[in-house]
């Protein structure tokens, strides 16, 4: 029980991939202009990362068995790319409404380094299948949390009198910096 709690709190708050480790910054800055799109992206990422964590962990068993560990990066990134494609077409067929909501975000996920980072971290920390999946799910929740929080702030900033040269990326970066400071409070929890 406590390991799971450690994973949940650790992945969402303490070691938040965006706020504490600098992963997934591109989509974090790119898709955080509106809360609605941020939520959509977050859901899509959660979907993919959870499945990817499970699949890559399975694949690692095969790699270990074949002593092909050095191919990890190539295999993982290929799997992720394929997975995104599969998820996209599966969603299209199975749940058109969900596809409509998430479809536009899916292709962007391949280059979201959180996916690969989580997969590799699962292997390097030696998590089992269940823990890996949970870890992936929580990491994605953490990503979503950061994304939606930033989107909320950026939406609010549209109402403020922010100087024009702060608009866009510079402002988003400084907001993220201040956000990251708030996240530091959880540093010692685990």
């Amino acid at each position, binding site marked *: 029980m406590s390991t799971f709690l450690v994973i949940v709190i650790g992945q969402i708050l303490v070691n938040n991939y965006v706020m504490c480790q600098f992963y997934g910054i591109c989509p974090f800055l790119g898709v955080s202009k509106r*809360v609605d799109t941020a939520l959509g992206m977050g859901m899509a990422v959660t979907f993919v990362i959870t499945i990817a964590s499970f699949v890559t962990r399975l694949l690692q068993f095969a790699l270990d068995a074949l002593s092909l560990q050095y191919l990890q990066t190539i295999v993982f990134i290929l799997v992720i790319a394929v997975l995104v494609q599969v998820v996209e077409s599966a969603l299209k067929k199975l749940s058109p409404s969900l596809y409509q909501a998430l479809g536009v975000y899916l292709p962007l996920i391949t280059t979201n380094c959180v996916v690969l980072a989580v997969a590799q971290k699962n292997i390097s920390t030696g998590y089992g299948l269940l823990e890996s999946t949970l870890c992936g799910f929580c990491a994605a929740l953490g990503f979503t949390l950061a994304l939606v929080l930033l989107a*909320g*702030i950026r939406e609010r900033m549209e109402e403020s009198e922010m100087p024009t040269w702060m608009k866009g990326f510079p402002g988003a970066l400084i907001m993220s910096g*201040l956000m990251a400071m*708030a*996240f530091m409070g959880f540093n*010692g*929890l685990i």
Partner: protein
Amino acid sequence: MLKNLAITSSPHVRSSATTRRIMQDVCIALAPAGIASIVFFGGSAAMIIAISVITCVLTEFLYQKLMGSKITVSDWSAVVTGLLLAYNIPASAPLWIPVVGGVFAILIVKQLFGGIGSNFMNPALAARVMLFVSWSGIMTAYPNTRFMVDEGMDAISGATPLAGLAKAFAGTGAETASIGNLLLGNVPGVLGETCKIALLLGGAYLIVRQVIDWRIPACMIGTVAVLYLIFGGFNFELTVKELLSGGLILGAFFMATDYATSPQTPLGRIIFAVGCGLILFVIRFGEKTYPEGCSFAILFMNVCTPLIDRWTAPKYFGEVKKHG
């Protein structure tokens, strides 16, 4: 007989509340704690307060001058930031600490986002956390008060009452400061957060003047109290001591109630305050690195504020429920 009549649209009368008046009220409410800090920590406290306020006001003035925008230092908001920042610094800190903090607070946290009302994070708190993360040695070297030195203790103990309380809760039976000393502020700590009587007095003033919403301090302190009671085995004495230790009172009355960085809806304010209390408790109770969670708790809820406001937006009077 009637010349230069003005033509503007209604309403034609305004309340007497002004931004400046509100900020002045906050300064008045902060004054007792400032005086207490000078009494307890001596001239160095006065120096830090002065430097901090001057830095904040000057930074705001110079930035606005440089950017060619309207100078707004006369609204007193920079003074409030300066005071709050100073209250979060221990008296033993070197004088460049409030300078760096003040510039960071006003420039990065406030003015870059558009100045008063536009910042999404409390400038003083953000600056405190920045200082704390950067120079934690300086920021956690809490000097003893002048009255404690007389008792032959070290000038710098480095331990706030919280450290002792944590041990007491854990059952290791460390000595804790008495409630009387906690209330008076005769305990080590940063400048403004020690003298609880002064802070409570100021807080009451703000509530009476309707500058702040009582819900925020009440819910925040209430949440912490309830959590400590439950997790501390209903030890009332320790719970009260816990409430009176650290930055909770200062934070709950003066920083969590900051207009720009807390929600505006009544429900949102309650969620915000409970969130602050919860995170503060989690950090104080479960942390190993930081002795104090108040700043972080409020900062984190500051970040959540836009979403809270968004999701607790009131239904307008007569709003028809949308079907489907």
